[in-house]
């Protein structure tokens, strides 16, 4: 039993149902849209339950200030930002310690997937804006950013899919919400390249035994492959719809 806003809630019921009715190995409803911002090179919108995120990608473009440019590869810069209205209590729009860290973590989980060697002396800029935060924002940001990168046509070895694992009342659960994150024992963020079977992010907050880690990784790997399929269809959607429209129009 935990108390949330004065209400006593059971995070996970004896028959394994969570607050929103999910089973421990269910993720929230995931909606992805690619290419929604006109001015960006590539963009994406991700809705993971109540977590809502926009990502925009610019570049490869010239690096400013010039001294940051690297002679052998592109610089990838990432800004994770939470809008002041994304959380219950107004968040100051200035970057906090946490946002700076998440920017770094997201950047480093995406770099292995980008073919950075192809653009020396250039920069690829990723902007992530959290519109509404309800847990797993870093995982949803990675999902959005990798779709945005692909929709910008930046060469990538693979898409990056991400999903978090938590532990509440001793049960491992996928895709933690804000309440579960704050009242649970463990929160682990995980990102991988599903086709290459490579992990690009593993961040554990809490304590898990070795067996639990193995179970958690196998649970989230399965979830990431599901998420990857959604990313794939989101990227293709625009083109397939257009193809249908044209072919349908040709017949009539």
């Amino acid at each position: 039993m935990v108390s949330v806003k004065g209400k006593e809630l059971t995070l996970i019921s004896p028959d394994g149902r969570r607050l929103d009715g999910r089973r421990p190995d269910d993720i929230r409803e995931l909606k992805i849209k690619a290419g929604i911002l006109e001015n960006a090179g590539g963009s994406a919108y991700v809705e993971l339950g109540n977590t809502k995120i926009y990502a925009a990608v610019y570049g490869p473009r010239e690096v400013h200030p010039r001294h940051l440019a690297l002679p052998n590869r592109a610089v990838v810069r990432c800004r994770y930002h939470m809008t002041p209205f994304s959380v219950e209590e107004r968040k100051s729009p200035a970057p906090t310690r946490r946002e700076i860290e998440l920017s770094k973590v997201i950047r480093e989980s995406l770099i292995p997937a980008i073919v950075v060697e192809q653009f020396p002396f250039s920069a690829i800029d990723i902007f992530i804006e959290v519109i509404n935060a309800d847990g797993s924002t870093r995982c949803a940001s990675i999902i959005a950013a990798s779709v945005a990168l692909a929709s910008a046509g930046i060469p990538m070895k693979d898409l990056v899919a991400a999903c978090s694992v938590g532990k509440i009342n001793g049960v491992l659960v996928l895709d933690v919400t804000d309440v579960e994150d704050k009242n649970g024992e463990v929160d682990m963020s995980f990102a991988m390249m599903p086709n290459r079977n490579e992990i690009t992010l593993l961040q554990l907050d809490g304590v898990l035994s070795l067996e639990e880690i193995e179970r958690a990784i196998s649970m989230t790997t399965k979830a990431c492959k599901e998420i990857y399929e959604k990313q794939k269809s989101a990227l293709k959607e625009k083109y397939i719809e257009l193809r249908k429209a044209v072919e349908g129009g040709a017949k009539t």
Partner: protein
Amino acid sequence: MPIYVKDWDLVVPGEVLAEGDYVAGPYVYKEGNKLFATAIGIAEIKRGVIRVVPLQGPYIPKVGDVVIGIVVDYLPTAYVLDINSSYKAILQVAEILPPQKNALAEDLSKYLDVGDVVVCKVVRFDKYSDVVVSCKGKELGKIVDGRLIKVSPAKIPRLIGRKGSMINLIKRETGCKMIIGQNGFIWIKGKDQASEVLAEKVIRKIDEEAHISGLTQRIQVMLQSEKRD
């Protein structure tokens, strides 16, 4: 040796295209025994070579490309051009200066001003230095009239078509003169405004529908019906 995609299939980065003894073409890489796509595009399989024709993506300069640039800056003896890429292009002043004139003693804006549009050719590019372009040659040089439109650089090969079939079709049907920059800029000059507008409309359609087969036919139909109106 299984192939997982068909010709003209839409693929996204990371998609496994085939396994086994195939050769990786552009926008495909091979690791171990598997071939992966690196861009969103259309798969093409030809004689054991698998390639992906990208639908989106930045312009990467190549020596010999005709590009259209916009002057953005001056150096002591050169102009700096924006060629819609992450690299700036350098155009030597000596190329346009009358002989016996000293570039250092001249007012460079007399010849090319900031904002001027120049058709040029890439003469040097090695990724580690700036792109060097030249504007000496047939159909190269400063542009003073017509209209300039911008499309995604990835669609330029479709716009040109096989051996220029598509672009020649548009030129013939609209009566416009056109120069295609590989960097996504296209210059159009027609007899009247209507023909320029039509040419622009056709190019926008190609930009949008480049991934759907039967493009040339659709463009032909479009040009015919527009001409009748």
